């Protein structure tokens, strides 16, 4: 637990020092949202209907940049090898990095959500606090397998291209659940389906976070 705390502290401190990176990622996510709105055109109903999908696509795309960059810096400087040669549990390394990635992705997600609400002129029909919970669960569902695969591909020259190929198919269930849950909060949940989708998200998160923690040591050790 102590090692995990140090890993998390280190990753968040480094991100805080280079906070322009998170700002750039947020800008990237917002740019994607703008591109979606331009692509669809002035059909406001279509934009409102598909806003949750655009939101999660922009978060997912930004996540690949976040995940590959973080690991690449550590691998290139030799810091990751130095870390692995210390008597440090690979699980502590994984959970520290995965939680840090989730926090950063959540920050990007919050910015993207606010822009989505304004840009597509959407007012949530359910309590907006659900949106925050969906963001937490959705980004958790991307961060755990994303951290595992980023570690796996960090030594490859084409890491930035390989990571989405591996990651996107794996997180499809999470993304479907996140988009559906977001749609229900924004468009109204007359049939009371929100709970079910949140359970689906939560279950996938539990599977990803437990499995990836076990596999990380074997992949990168």
């Amino acid at each position, binding site marked *: 637990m*102590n090692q995990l705390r140090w890993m998390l502290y*280190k990753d968040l401190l480094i991100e805080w020092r280079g906070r322009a990176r998170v700002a750039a990622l947020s800008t990237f996510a917002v740019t994607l949202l703008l591109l979606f709105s331009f692509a669809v055109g002035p059909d406001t109903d279509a934009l409102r209907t598909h806003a949750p999908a655009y939101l999660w696509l922009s978060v997912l795309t930004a996540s690949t940049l976040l995940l590959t960059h973080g690991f690449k810096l550590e691998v290139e400087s*030799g810091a990751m*090898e130095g870390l692995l040669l*210390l*008597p440090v549990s690979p699980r502590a390394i994984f959970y520290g990095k995965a939680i840090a990635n989730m926090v950063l992705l959540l920050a990007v997600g919050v910015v993207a959500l606010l822009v989505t609400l304004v840009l597509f002129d959407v007012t949530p029909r359910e309590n907006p606090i659900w949106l925050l919970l969906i963001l937490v669960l959705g980004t958790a569902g991307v961060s755990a397998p994303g951290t595992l695969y980023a570690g796996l591909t960090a030594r490859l020259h084409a890491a930035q291209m390989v990571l989405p190929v591996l990651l996107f198919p794996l997180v499809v269930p999470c993304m479907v659940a996140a988009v559906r849950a977001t749609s229900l909060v924004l468009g109204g949940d007359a049939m009371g389906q929100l709970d079910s989708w949140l359970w689906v998200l939560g279950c996938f998160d539990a599977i990803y976070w437990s499995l990836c923690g076990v596999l990380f040591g074997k992949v990168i050790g």
Partner: protein
Amino acid sequence: MPAAAIEARDVGRRYGRRWALARLDLIVPEGSFFLLVGANGSGKTTFLRLAASAEQRNRGELAVFGQDPARRAENLRAHVALLSHKAGLYEDLSARENLELLAGLASMEPRIAEWLAAVQLEDRPDPVRCFSAGMRKRLAFARLIAQRPRLALIDEPYGQLDPVGFDLVDGLMHTLRDQGATVVIASHLVERASRQADTALVLHQGTPRWQGPARKVPAAWAAVHRVPA
């Protein structure tokens, strides 16, 4: 006779089809100061990385303190420290923060001021990215001594350092040895390194060519490479 810190029998490591290290038989006694000498690509770094469990051999048997580093890496990592070409430092953190992180992760008592003073970096609060190559090397040495390893594997200890740094590093390596550590270094500065070490091994194109007392290594090195003495 002291126990062996490293024992290698017919050890080989291949990258693709090329053997970077082949047919290496070697015993490094515990508490000794051992020198590896060889031209670029002779297998020095490969051997250090195998002993540190950073890589796995393709053939032969290797034991570090009686344990196979390929199978018992977790057990050995508390006792073995590798200082490689890459300093392995976090560029956005200061020297103090890098050492605090090490102490926190390895559950060591954080004697940061002492470690920084040992490498004369106590007055540098700026991030490592502002450091010169020599200063990074010194900080990497601070990490090494902080770990108090039983086996210190040091690749090019004098690389990137100025003459003052050479003396500093010699002192640090002897401190490690005085603390009971086995020190294995790989260096191109044959004359200087041979004055520090007890025994030496000359590698040539991945194979061992000569082994003996370190004071004789300059002559052996010259003979292997046909350098006029």
